[in-house]
């Protein structure tokens, strides 16, 4: 059977940087040190007003091609993961096919997922390759959650940053894509949501209510029920990993590097302790980028590659909005 591999990966960050010192100035009850120690993030990048997720996906892909120019011509499929596309229609991936100068025989589609998006993208890319539909898939992730966050929402402002990534999935490469464990629980849709602006509630309402924890819940902005998401994650991730390891017929000790969705340092360390994962096998990269939604894992892969830490079995696990989760194992050379 044909196998699918990650062949190349890179990422783009917008220029503007929001530091903890700036956040502490905006919210004087917080100190920069407290912010850093709580969430493990020193700075996050913010897309410019006129810079969209699609623009950033374009830049991430261009950056990837600048180091691998021969790959551009070989591409025959684009998958774009984003919850911040340019238009209701057409798909941003179609626009990107043209902007990136990719051939007309290239398939293209967008898919709407957040923090689990990279695993879903790898699953689809692998499916396209193994079935012979495509040979070289450009998987893009791009998100501008900071445009959805209310200016007074200090929790989410602290955590999220904007970014885009580009990955090429092909019939050869440095990491063979293994089995998948995917899952969904749509009953939790309301716990991480931007309520207005879609077809259900087209116009902004301006409404703000208090949730059961006494936190503001804006209809027109990103809302996250931190407690529910925390509990969901700690319930779902250990079981997902257990099932994936069963499919792979390997044990937890066989994993050489763990790369979880970089939600925030506190939460993923909680998961690490809960699952008894060794600290030196648990990759964390968020100090300079924050939680970039579907881009955290490919950014971490890029950085792990630079640090020469991608060897053996690398477990990737994403979880979040949907609620949705996904994990896979990459076998690296």
């Amino acid at each position, binding site marked *: 059977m044909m196998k699918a591999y990650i062949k190349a990966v890179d990422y783009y960050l917008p220029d503007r940087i929001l530091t903890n010192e700036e956040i502490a100035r905006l919210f004087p009850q917080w100190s920069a040190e407290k912010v850093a120690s709580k969430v493990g993030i020193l700075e996050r990048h913010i897309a410019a007003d006129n810079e969209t997720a699609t623009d950033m996906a374009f830049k991430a892909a261009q950056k990837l091609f600048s180091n691998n120019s021969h790959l551009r011509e070989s591409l025959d499929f684009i998958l774009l993961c984003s919850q911040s596309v340019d238009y209701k229609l057409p798909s941003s991936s179609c626009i990107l096919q043209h902007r990136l100068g990719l051939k007309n025989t290239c398939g293209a589609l967008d898919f709407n997922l957040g923090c689990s998006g990279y695993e879903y993208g790898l699953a689809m890319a692998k499916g396209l390759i193994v079935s012979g539909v495509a040979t070289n898939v450009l998987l893009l992730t791009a998100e501008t959650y900071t445009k959805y966050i209310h200016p007074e929402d200090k929790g989410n402002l602290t955590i999220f940053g904007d970014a885009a990534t580009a990955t090429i999935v092909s019939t050869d490469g440095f990491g063979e894509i293994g089995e998948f464990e995917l899952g969904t629980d749509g009953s939790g849709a309301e716990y991480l949501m931007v309520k207005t602006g879609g077809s259900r509630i087209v116009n902004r309402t301006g409404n703000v209510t208090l949730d059961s924890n006494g936190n503001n819940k804006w209809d027109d902005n990103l809302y996250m029920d931190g*407690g529910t998401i925390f509990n969901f994650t700690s319930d779902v991730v250990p079981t997902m990993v257990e099932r994936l390891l069963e499919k792979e017929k390997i044990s937890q000790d066989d994993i050489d590097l763990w790369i979880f969705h970089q939600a925030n340092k506190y939460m993923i360390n*909680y998961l690490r302790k809960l699952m008894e994962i060794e600290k030196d096998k648990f990759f964390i990269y968020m100090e300079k980028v924050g939680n970039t939604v579907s881009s955290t894992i490919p950014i971490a892969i890029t950085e792990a590659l630079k640090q020469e830490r991608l060897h053996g079995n690398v477990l990737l696990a994403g979880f979040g909005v949907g609620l949705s989760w996904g994990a896979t194992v990459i076998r690296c050379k």
Partner: protein
Amino acid sequence: MEIKQFIADFADQFDETELNEFQPKTEFRELEEWSSLAGLAILNMIGKKYGVKISASEIKGIDTIEALYNLVLSKK
């Protein structure tokens, strides 16, 4: 169920705070390392280890580890 074990489980959610700072009368919100995320971790730990569901609003009026322990006991 003993308070000693509960304090140990509580302390497990912290990385930098000295163990002797965790006493029954410790006002946990005054700990340097305390954060709302630590609060979520503790509620999650109580659910997993003690089978008791405590909401974020229920913990709002609780100040000491002992008071939290008593709330867990009352719900078991």
